[in-house]
C-alpha cells in the first residue's frame, strides 16, 4: 500500500542555508494494509521526518514515496484531497493539535466542510457517534467541550475518531501516547491495534521499544536517518543483529529485570554475533562505500529480517 523507495531528506541549516543536514538517508520500507510498522529511533533519527514526508508536510529530497502505486509528491488539488481522505496523521501533543479557543468537536466540523459538504445533518451525527463509539468515547462527555476540559487520552481518541470519519487506509501515529499517563496509554494502543483488523495500516513512530514491540508486526530501527535493522517484530526483538539495536534494547527499563541482568544477557547474545552482520553476507569492508553503487544497504540475514553495516559512521 505505502512504499518508500530510497527516500532521502536533506535540510538546509545554518545562516543562509549554508550547511546541509541529511535527516533521512536512503530509506526503503513498505506498509501493507492491516499492518503496524513501528519506526523506532532516538531523537534525530529521522523517524518524525519520515512520517511528515508521507503526510506531505515535508518534501522529499530524493527517491519516491508511493501510495497504491502513485507518487505522493505529484498529487495536486482533487487527487491530493482524496489522498488525505485515505491517509491521516496524529501527533504527539494533543493540546497543540486542537485550537484552544474553539470547542474540541470543531475538528469534526472541519472534516465535514472539507470532505462531506453534501451530507445531511442526521447522517453526519450518526457518523460522528459511530466514530466516537469506535474509539470508546461517550458523546455526551466529549462533544460541546473545550480542549482544556478534556484529558489528553480523550483528545487523542477524538483525533483517531476524526480520522475514522474519513475512509482511512493509513494512519501516521507520531509518538501519540508519549504524553499520556500509563493508565490510559494502553487503551489508545489497543485502539490502534483494533484499527488494523479493519484493514488500516499504521506507521507507528516511537522512541519506546516496549510500545513498538507490543503493537507492531514489523519493526524498523533507525539511527541518524539510516535504517540499521528491519524485520518482523518477533525476529528483531528475539534476535537483534545490529549493535545499536542491542544497545537500545539494553537501555529500556524493565519491570522485573534489572539493567545489569539485561546487559549480561545481551552481552552473551552479542558474543555469538560476528563483528558485522551486513558484511558477513555482502562484499566490501565496514566503513567503506561498496564498489557497486547499486549494492543494497541492508543484507538479509534470515527471511524477512535485514540488517545494515555495524560501522559507526560519523555524522554529516
Amino acid at each position, binding site marked *: 500500500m505505502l512504499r518508500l523507495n530510497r527516500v532521502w531528506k536533506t535540510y538546509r541549516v545554518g545562516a543562509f542555508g549554508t550547511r546541509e543536514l541529511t535527516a533521512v538517508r536512503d530509506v526503503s520500507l513498505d506498509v501493507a494494509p492491516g499492518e503496524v510498522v513501528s519506526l523506532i529511533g*532516538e*531523537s534525530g533519527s529521522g523517524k518524525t521526518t519520515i512520517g511528515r514526508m508521507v503526510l506531505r508536510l515535508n518534501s522529499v529530497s530524493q527517491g519516491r514515496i508511493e501510495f497504491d502505486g502513485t507518487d505522493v509528491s505529484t498529487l495536486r488539488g482533487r487527487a491530493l484531497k482524496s489522498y488525505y481522505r485515505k491517509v491521516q496523521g496524529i501527533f504527539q501533543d494533543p493540546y497543540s493539535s486542537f485550537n484552544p479557543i474553539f470547542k474540541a468537536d470543531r475538528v469534526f466540523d472541519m472534516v465535514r466542510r472539507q470532505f462531506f459538504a453534501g451530507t445531511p445533518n442526521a447522517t453526519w451525527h450518526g457518523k460522528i457517534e459511530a466514530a466516537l463509539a469506535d474509539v470508546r468515547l461517550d458523546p455526551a462527555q466529549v462533544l460541546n467541550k473545550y480542549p482544556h476540559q478534556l*484529558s489528553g487520552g480523550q483528545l487523542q481518541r477524538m483525533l483517531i475518531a476524526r480520522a475514522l470519519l474519513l475512509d482511512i487506509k493509513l494512519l501516521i501515529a507520531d509518538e501519540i501516547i508519549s504524553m499520556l*499517563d*500509563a*493508565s*490510559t*496509554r*494502553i*487503551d489508545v*494502543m*489497543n485502539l490502534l*491495534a483494533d484499527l488494523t483488523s479493519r484493514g488500516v495500516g499504521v506507521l507507528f513512530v516511537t*522512541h*519506546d*521499544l*516496549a*510500545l513498538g*514491540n*507490543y*503493537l507492531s508486526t514489523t519493526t524498523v530501527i533507525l539511527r541518524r536517518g539510516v535504517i540499521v535493522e528491519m524485520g518482523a*517484530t*518477533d525476529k528483531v*526483538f528475539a534476535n537483534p543483529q545490529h549493535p545499536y539495536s542491542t*544497545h*537500545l*534494547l*539494553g*537501555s*529500556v*527499563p*524493565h*519491570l*522485573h529485570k*534489572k*539493567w545489569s541482568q539485561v546487559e549480561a544477557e545481551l552481552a552473551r547474545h552479542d558474543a555469538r554475533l560476528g563483528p558485522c552482520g551486513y558484511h558477513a553476507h555482502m562484499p566490501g569492508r565496514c566503513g567503506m562505500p561498496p564498489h557497486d553503487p547499486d549494492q543494497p544497504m541492508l543484507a538479509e540475514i534470515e527471511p524477512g529480517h535485514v540488517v545494515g553495516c555495524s560501522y559507526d559512521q560519523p555524522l554529516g
Partner: protein
Amino acid sequence: MSLQVDGLRVRYRTLRGDVHALDGVTFEVADGEIMGLVGESGCGKTTLAKSLIRLDGRMQYVDGVVELDGVKLPIDDQHAMNRFRFTQISFVPQYAMSALNPIRKIGKMIAELLESRGFDYKSIQPELERRLDLVGLPRDVLRRYPIELSGGMKQRTVVVVSTLLDPSLLVADEATSALDVSNQKAVAETLVEFRDRRFVRSVIVVTHDISLGYQIADTIMVMYAGKQAEKAPAEVIVNSPRHPYTQALMSSLPEVGVRYEDRRLAGIPGSPPPLLNPPSGCRFRDRCPLAFDQCAEEPPFVEIATGHSVACWKAA
C-alpha cells in the same frame, strides 16, 4: 535518619477554591536511600517534590513537619529556606534547559551560582572537573553554552551542578522523562553512582515510569490523588504489590516481550478524582475492581510487613 516528613499538607489556591494536592503525607527517606515516587499525573508527586525545595506562588502550606537530619525545615518561609537550598537540599528539574541560563557559559553560570552562595569557584573547580570526568562529560563543557550540549549531556551537567556541595537530599523531578532511552539510562545511573560515592546522601526520584523507579530506587512510594497508596522496597512493589492501584498501574504497562496478539493489556478505567472537592473514603474507590462497602471509610496507611505500608482495607 535523613528525611522525615510527617503529615504534610499543601494546597493550591484557585478562584474556585482550594485544591488539596497533598493531603497528609508521612514517610521517611533513610540515609543512603533512593526513593522512587510514582503515580499518574495529578496525584501530587510533583507537588510533594516541590514542597521540599520551594513552594511556588500558588502553593500554600497547610500543616505538617519536614525534618532533614533532625533539623526542621521552614518550608513555608521562602527566605529561611535559602539557607538549606543547594547546600542541604538540591533539585533536578524535568527540563535541564529550565535549569541552565541560556546566555551564560556553563562554567560562568556555576561560578556565579557558587559565589552567590558565598563559595569560592576556584577552590571547587578541581572537584567539579573530577565529577564531570566521572559522568563522562568533557571538561570543556564549562566553556560551552547550554545550547551546544545534547539533552542527555545537559541533564548530566545539571546533576553534577546540583550535587556539587554534597547535599543531604536530592530531589529529581522527572529528570529523565524527556530523554531518549540510552540517555535516560546514563542519567539514572549517574544518580545511583553519586549516591554510592556519597556525593548526595539520599535521593527522591519522581517518575511516572514505575519500571525506571524499579531500576534505580531502593524503595518505591506510590501516590494516588494526593495521598499515599503504597510504600515498600522496590522488589516488593514490583513482585508482590498489595494496593489495587499499584497492581493496575503495573498490569497496564507494556514490557519488552509482551505482544498485543499474545496478551492484551488493559488500562485503568476512569480518571483520578478532582482534588477541588476530594471524595470521602478511599479515593481509588470508583476505579477499583475490589471496592466494597468499607471503602466508603478512608483506609489508614498502615504497615503490613516490615517496610511495607498500604492504604487499603483489602490489604490489611
